[in-house]
């Protein structure tokens, strides 16, 4: 009985953590990550961007590509939020989660591993494009030295999640915990049934 309570608490904690992490991730996907100022100005988020370069609207195939690929990460996080909320609801309402909800929680947690790779690709694409946009545009011509104003890049809080290993550090423990807790619960349920 005591053990059963502990598993319930573990499931609750894991699913709640998953909901928080994935809601934060979804927020970070939509919120502006970087603000550009100077002759090239605007903002860049994973899902969208709005940039004016030298007085004209700028369309980036690379950022379009990143926003298209972000569908994978958004789907994965949405699945995790839905599965986490469903599991939490069932534990609170019925006292124990259903097998369906637990399997969904575990599988959706595993999808985060796939989105981890996708997000890494998105990060590279965005970083590459931003380094291109913030380069030095000054040059020399027959008119002399043309010094173009510098482009400043200001990272916003949403960019923290994409820096270094942050995303992996917050998602991988969740994936491990969700898989372990769900597997343990399913095994103990099967033993109980037997």
């Amino acid at each position, binding site marked *: 009985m005591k053990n059963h309570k502990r598993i319930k608490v573990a499931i609750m904690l894991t699913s709640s953590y998953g909901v928080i992490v994935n809601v934060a991730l979804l927020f970070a996907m939509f919120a502006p990550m970087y603000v550009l100022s100077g002759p090239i100005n605007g903002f860049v988020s994973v899902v969208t961007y709005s940039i004016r370069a*030298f007085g004209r609207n*700028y369309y980036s195939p690379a950022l379009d590509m990143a926003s298209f690929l972000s569908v994978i990460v958004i789907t994965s996080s949405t699945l995790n939020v839905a599965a986490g909320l469903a599991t939490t609801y069932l534990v609170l309402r019925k006292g124990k989660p259903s097998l*369906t909800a637990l399997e969904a929680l575990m*599988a959706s947690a595993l999808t985060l591993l796939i989105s981890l790779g996708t997000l890494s690709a998105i990060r590279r694409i965005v970083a590459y494009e931003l380094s291109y946009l913030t380069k030095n545009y000054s040059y020399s011509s027959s008119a002399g030295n043309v010094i173009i104003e510098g482009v400043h890049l200001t990272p916003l809080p949403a960019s923290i999640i994409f820096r270094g290993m942050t995303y992996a550090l917050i998602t991988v423990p969740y994936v491990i915990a969700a898989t372990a807790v769900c597997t343990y619960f399913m095994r103990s349920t099967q033993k109980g049934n037997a």
Partner: protein
Amino acid sequence: MGAVLLAIIMLLFIGRVVGFPVAVIIVSGRSMEPTLEVGDIVVGVKSAYSVGDIVIWCASPTYCVVHRVIEISNRTVVTKGDNNPSPDPPIPRSLVKYRVVTVIRRWEWLPFVGAGLLIYAYVNRDYFRKKNVRPGDIASLVLVSFIVFNATVALLAPTYYSIRSGGLAVPHVALKGTSILRDGSILITLNVYNTKLIKVTSCFVWIYGEKRRFRCDASVESPTQIIVKDIPLNLLVETLREGKGPLLVSVEANILFGRLRGTYYIYPSWKEPAIKVLNGTVTITNPNPIPLTVNVTTYTANKPGPTNTTFKKITLPPWGSVKLDLSHYKYAYVQVRYVFRGKVINKQLRVRP
């Protein structure tokens, strides 16, 4: 039935990879807005195309571009996104795979797909009931669906991104030419792209090889022209008369999105005065930006015999001229003397008869 439908759809989507006569592609960029928007499905067929058509060209089996044809030559095709400021680089004609014949808007197909999934889930609701679900079924369904979805997105989106941006209009400034105006000012004309001259912040002028530098008054004449005034006269005189090195003008100016710092070589040409005789009138013109002194001696008479001689030292202003009317004499000669490049030039002209 569902599996067959799914297989046909998948075949159409991978049509471009295997070279089917018909291919379907999802628009993933904004370069063709407003004609095509992100999420729209375009259907392409292998057929002839002309300027103005939207085509699908593929640089690799997975990287395709949907753009409009703006130019066709024997070997190459130039395309451009409707929303891009500049065209794409020319591509070989062999890369153009399909001509777009139909566009299915995202709001036309997305609701149908959503409704279809919901109907599928409703029809198969018994399967999802607890009693029919075996352990591992839901987990497998979620994972496999996600992987299929993932693969589909990766296949539909171009898996390559180009270093070439969608048209970054970096301002460009180049020198078009310099000239000396009638008042001795210097006009610097520039070719500019996506910028304009705003304000001149400093100006210096000097003779090449000399250390003395003089401030000058420069201003923006037009978005592409700088006018440099108040050039010390002695600088022009030294450059022109004494044949010293070229004149240098250093200008620093604010331009839209940056600054311009340039030094320009001015080569003023020292020209001989133009002397013309017409109907008994002598016109002497100074074609130089500095004053010019000429000694004019006239020999006049109304009958054969001794002549009246008059001597005049005339200083012509820059670009100025002087007229000597000798038409009321029956006989008139004129002698014009001036110094040109260190030599005394002596010109004699018969004015009348």
